[in-house]
């Protein structure tokens, strides 16, 4: 006599299989119901097949919400393979061929032009080939040369750029509204008390927030007393910022869902909404 859990599990599996079969039949019926329009282009059937497959893959992906299942895993791995293949071909087409093959073997009108291009490109081509040595356990040390070149360049050029863009410009923007409010008035219009006060208050809030958040992350000093108060203020600003980010993240994810639903309703369904 089967244990009760085993019976429940078998019943659930049978129900799931029945639902799956009914779902597949319904999907095929709905997909086939869309008629070819009178003014359809020649490749309408190819596109329609693509839309059906896309809709099928979309619904299979959403089956994950019920639970992980073999169909989802097949679709997921198929997608990974296609993405990999697409990336490889695009890298060849858009990066390696126009940077190496065309300039060396297609475009040069004569041998001298080929030599000029070759001289210009041989070093990065060799370095790129050395980069691929990363995949070899024995020769991976060779890949350190191109990597240190790229990392060193990035680190060196990054320092002045970071200082200018992320520090100086940002600090200037934090202080500028206060100095502007103190010195200038809109041409031909008196700003009035609130016209001056509100921007100044806003700038003080921004300065206070920036300083307190920076202080919160400064762990070399104990956060007690006045420092503790500033640190607490920083936490409050951070919480408001994280809440705002959460709100926007919800908005972003819901938008993605809306996009897929629109595809299913507009492109896949026979009556296209």
């Amino acid at each position, binding site marked *: 006599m089967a244990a009760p859990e085993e019976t429940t599990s078998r019943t659930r599996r049978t129900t799931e299989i029945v639902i799956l079969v009914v779902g597949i039949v319904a999907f095929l019926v709905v997909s086939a119901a869309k008629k070819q329009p009178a003014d359809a282009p020649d490749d309408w059937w190819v596109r329609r097949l693509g839309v059906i497959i896309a809709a099928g893959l979309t619904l299979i992906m959403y089956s994950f919400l019920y639970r992980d299942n073999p169909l989802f895993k097949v679709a997921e791995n198929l997608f990974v393979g296609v993405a990999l293949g697409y990336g490889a071909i695009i890298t060849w087409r*858009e990066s390696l061929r126009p940077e190496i093959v065309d300039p060396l073997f297609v475009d040069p009108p004569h041998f001298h032009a080929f030599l000029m291009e070759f001289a210009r490109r041989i070093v990065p081509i060799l370095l790129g080939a050395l980069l691929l040595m990363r995949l070899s356990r024995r020769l991976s040390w060779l890949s350190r040369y191109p990597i240190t070149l790229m990392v060193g360049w990035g680190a060196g050029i990054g320092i002045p750029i970071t200082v200018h*863009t992320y520090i100086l410009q940002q600090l200037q923007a934090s202080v500028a509204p206060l100095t502007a409010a103190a010195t200038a008035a809109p041409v031909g219009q008196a700003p009035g008390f609130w016209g001056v006060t509100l921007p100044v208050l806003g700038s003080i809030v*921004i300065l206070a927030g920036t300083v307190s958040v920076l202080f919160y992350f400064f762990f070399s000093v104990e956060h007690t007393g006045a420092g503790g108060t500033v640190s607490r203020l920083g936490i409050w600003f951070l919480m408001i910022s994280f809440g705002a*980010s959460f709100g926007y993240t919800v908005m972003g994810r819901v*938008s*993605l869902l809306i996009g897929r639903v629109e595809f299913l309703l507009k492109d896949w369904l026979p009556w296209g*909404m």
Partner: protein
Amino acid sequence: MGTPEAQATLRRLAVARRVIYVLVAVAVLVPFVYPLPFRFRPSPWSEKVFKKVEALKPGSPILFSFDFDPSAMAELYPMSLALLRHCLQRDLHPIVMTHWQSGVGITKQIIEEAAKERGKQSGKDYVFLGFRAGGSNLVLNMGESLQGAFAKDFFKQPTEGMPALEGVRSLKDIPLVIDIAAGTAIEMWIAYGRDRFGFDLGAGCTAVIAPDLYPFLQSGQLVGVLGGLRGAADYEMLMKRPGSATKGMQAQSLTHVLIILLIVGANVHYLSRRLKGSTKG
């Protein structure tokens, strides 16, 4: 296996989870079946991007960097399409490129869809440069020589002497660059592009990264930003051509209200239990 109570709790949680999924699905579906009448006005930062494009004279070049892939398509495709339509309507010369190899196909689709509507030709009215590896190094290259960075466009036409690139030798010759991004490309364009070569930089981005851009808006390093599907809907509104983004905002409204109600309801329940617990002593 756990105690019967634990198993019952897990089953209740699983049911609650699926009920929420169904509610979210319904909230998204309903506005497509019964259109809702919620009106809205474009946000100030979206308007700033629109006005910058409007201020360009016909025939001016404008660079677009579509740095996203299918995972962000729902938010950024309508936005990109609206921007390109605006540019082609004003007879600007869009120069379109991407830093994401997985975004090449979508970028090509967007520019071809917008161009077909107005009968614009590649090479003459717009140019699709395609993808190149390099990231910030590519931006630095483009700042010195655009034709050096992209000797040929996506359709293998030489960029040297191309009518759509007339007067453009580098990023310094482009008055406005708009980066539509799902990742950190906007900050890269600010640091390696705008702050160096002096062009105006606008942005379109997924809602997830929009809050991170406010410091750049306040400092003037960005002229404006279109944030998420709302940004796309704002631009459609400003173009007076409502499209999928405007329709999508109705579903967005309903779903947000649902999630707000779920959160508020759960917190009311939590706080009332806490109060009951504290009054019991």
